[in-house]
């Protein structure tokens, strides 16, 4: 009998204790990933509270530190403790939490951290078994280590801004279309995730070595590591990246992002076999047989005019029609989904991609687990804590109860 027939209600990380001194997205998200899998996560906030409490989105846009949608998402499945860390009592309380912790995660700005007695070296010597995970914009060594960085700056310096819009899209106009950052926390989320994986590896390593570890993560490096495909091209060919139509990444055409009757689709037909299917799908127009588009090389060389020809065709059909045709012809064509359409799709519903929560008395949906563990499923055990909600309980009784 397979080992996973009995799903437990405890997560796979039950029994692990994490103390988070985080702000914004990166640190809190790393800790959330542990909490979502069953670890006891104690979020420590100073009296001013995590800045995400002030960011929202709020119900009807009315600011309320206990009803910030992003805060609620990033801090589900955590306990909340408020400590005045500039005072002796707060520092002592923090040490009581750290004594029982397996992992400490922080992404507080270096300046703030330096003013507190919780720097990595001090914690490592006082708690030899503790995994100390620090997330900073550029890392703690090197010429940029003292510099100011955030979501946008680390994203810009990771290669990701320059390659957006990216394959199979590209900039149309180098001046009017700058390197693009999306309206979300890409760099911080990736850093939080990488910090979680690194901390998890250190926890497993501790099982053998008996030693804790300082995980010293650079946000810039975390996002740069994601650029592996294009870094490989630079390393092997040495060519300069071009935002317009990158010959490295947009090798064979058509493989692009095009408008259609009601939105946008990607059309990928880079190889001869795909091109045959695509021309069939288009009803074998005469232009497609012409020398200008007859070979893979010709199609790439004449991509500018080929693109316009294809758009003439895609504009006659809806995204859904193109997708249905593509599935029939075994062609990779896929339509753009708005967030609403994705959220309301049968696929999302069946997979429980989103979970319903209450925010300030209002119903809302947020992303659920990004992976489904069959034996130890993701559960929403508790909503994000109110500021200091569990201070008394945790400092008085610990978590054993």
């Amino acid at each position, binding site marked *: 009998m397979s080992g996973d027939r009995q799903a437990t209600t405890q997560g796979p990380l039950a029994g692990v204790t994490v103390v988070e001194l985080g702000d914004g997205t990166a640190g809190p998200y790393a800790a959330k990933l542990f909490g979502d899998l069953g670890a006891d996560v104690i979020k420590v906030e100073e009296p001013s509270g995590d800045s995400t409490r002030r960011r929202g989105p709020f119900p009807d846009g009315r600011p309320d530190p206990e009803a910030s949608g992003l805060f609620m998402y990033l801090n589900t499945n955590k306990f909340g403790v408020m400590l005045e860390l500039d005072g002796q009592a707060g520092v002592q309380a923090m040490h009581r939490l750290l004594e029982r912790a397996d992992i400490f995660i922080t992404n507080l700005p270096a300046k703030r951290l330096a003013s507190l007695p919780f720097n990595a070296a001090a914690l490592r010597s006082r708690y030899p078994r503790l995994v100390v995970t620090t997330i900073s914009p550029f890392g703690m060594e*090197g010429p940029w280590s003292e510099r100011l960085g955030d979501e946008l700056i680390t994203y810009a310096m990771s290669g990701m801004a320059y390659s957006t819009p990216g394959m199979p899209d590209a900039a149309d106009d180098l001046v009017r279309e700058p390197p693009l950052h999306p309206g979300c*926390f890409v760099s911080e989320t990736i850093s939080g995730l990488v910090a979680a994986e690194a901390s998890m590896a250190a926890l497993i390593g501790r099982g053998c070595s008996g030693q804790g570890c*300082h995980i010293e993560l650079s946000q810039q490096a975390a996002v740069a*590591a994601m*650029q*592996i495909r294009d870094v490989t091209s630079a390393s092997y060919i040495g060519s300069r990246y071009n935002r317009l139509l990158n010959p490295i990444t947009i090798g064979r055409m058509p493989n692009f992002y095009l408008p259609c009757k009601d939105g946008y689709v990607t059309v990928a037909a880079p190889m001869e076999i795909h091109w045959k299917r695509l021309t069939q799908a288009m009803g074998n127009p005469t232009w497609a047989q012409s020398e200008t588009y007859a070979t893979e090389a010709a199609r790439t060389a004449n991509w500018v005019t080929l693109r316009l020809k294809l758009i003439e065709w895609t504009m006659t059909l809806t995204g859904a029609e193109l997708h249905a045709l593509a599935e029939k012809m075994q062609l990779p064509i896929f339509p753009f989904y708005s967030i609403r359409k994705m959220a309301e799709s049968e696929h*999302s519903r069946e997979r429980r991609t989103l979970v319903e929560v209450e925010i300030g008395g209002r119903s809302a949906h947020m992303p659920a687990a*990004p992976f489904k563990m069959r034996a130890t499923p993701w559960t929403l055990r508790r909503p994000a804590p109110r500021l200091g909600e569990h201070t008394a309980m945790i400092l008085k009784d610990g978590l054993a109860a």
Partner: protein
Amino acid sequence: MTQARSRPLPLEGIRVLDLGQFIAIPFCTLWLAWLGAEVIVIESRRRMTSRTAPPFADGHEKDPNASGYFNQLYSSKKSCTIDMTTAEGRDLVRRLAGVCDVMVDNFSTGVLEKLGLGYEAVAAVNPSIVMLSNGAFGRAGPMRNARGLHSAVNLFSGVADVTGYVDGHPRILGGVVPDPLSGTYSGFAILAAIHHRQKTGQGQFIDVAMHETMLTLIPEAVIDLTMNEVEPQRIGNRDRVNAPHGIYRCRGDDTWLAISVSNEAAWACLCRSIGHPEWLTDSRFASPEARRKNVAALDLAIEAWSHGQDVHEAADMLQRAGVPAGPVLRVDELLDNEQLNARDGVVTIDHPVAGPRRQMGLPWRMDSLGVEYRRAPLLGEHTHEILTGLLGISEADYNRLEAGGVLS
């Protein structure tokens, strides 16, 4: 290069059977291998993972040992050639699954089951195995069989809905990010499952949908939509709350500077350092609300300044003044970036065919645990070692399998 090999590797002793392709799963197991896991890649001349993909080392086009795509994604792993189109080959893979802690794949949904290597079949041999399957739309749900590479994942996930120029059409996030992102989530999930198994002995199946990993990038927009019926907006490089927050043109071709101001102190530093102290009392820009309202004029005003500046000098000057700013780096500039290099973030790995090549190493440093960067394996380099050693197959049987084409 090796960072203090004398330190223990955190994942030493964990064995992974890797049936991955493209980038997502190979990226997942790349980090596991660097952290000390023994990663056994199953490939064959019929199914050469990414060895046929460019770029190739100069003068070695089409050489399966010279693909940069392969060599950089398969560093520190072992190559075992087994032809899974043969019954004996499939049996060998099943036996290997029996002696591994983890098995991973990102085939199209259903392929593994057809090969007799689905979770049920593998768990029958090895109930405590952790098996992770990564698919564009996951392994459950009505779209589980839909075709899709990273661009489809991007378009379905909702991320494109918040990626675009002001009031423009949806655009696609670069760097084929659904692949390495879902690969990283896969790595975290595997390690959590291993932790659980170490405590309980229980293995399990993990279903990763690439689009769901992308969805984790956009909680704000999802919540605003479902709570307030606020439709997502494409706002270029601007932020919903803070201004200025943008990427501005500098002197020279296609050269850009990122500036991000999130408080009044940084705003005052910005105005003074770029020679516009009058903006501090300009009613259009004097408060965060005013700047948000007049952001178009603000962006134009900043670009009028930045346009004449050298990007690196401007970034240095703003940083000294206390303003978060930095140059937009091209991907090819990352390899030479002094900050990434100063913290051993760029590693050089030598290879007998491709020579020494640079790539990004782990983005974090460790003070008590080690990491090992070894070259990618040659095609079939470890087949004999794995089959005769790990599976205990006799030389005679090995020779028979090889002669029969099972190991090609």
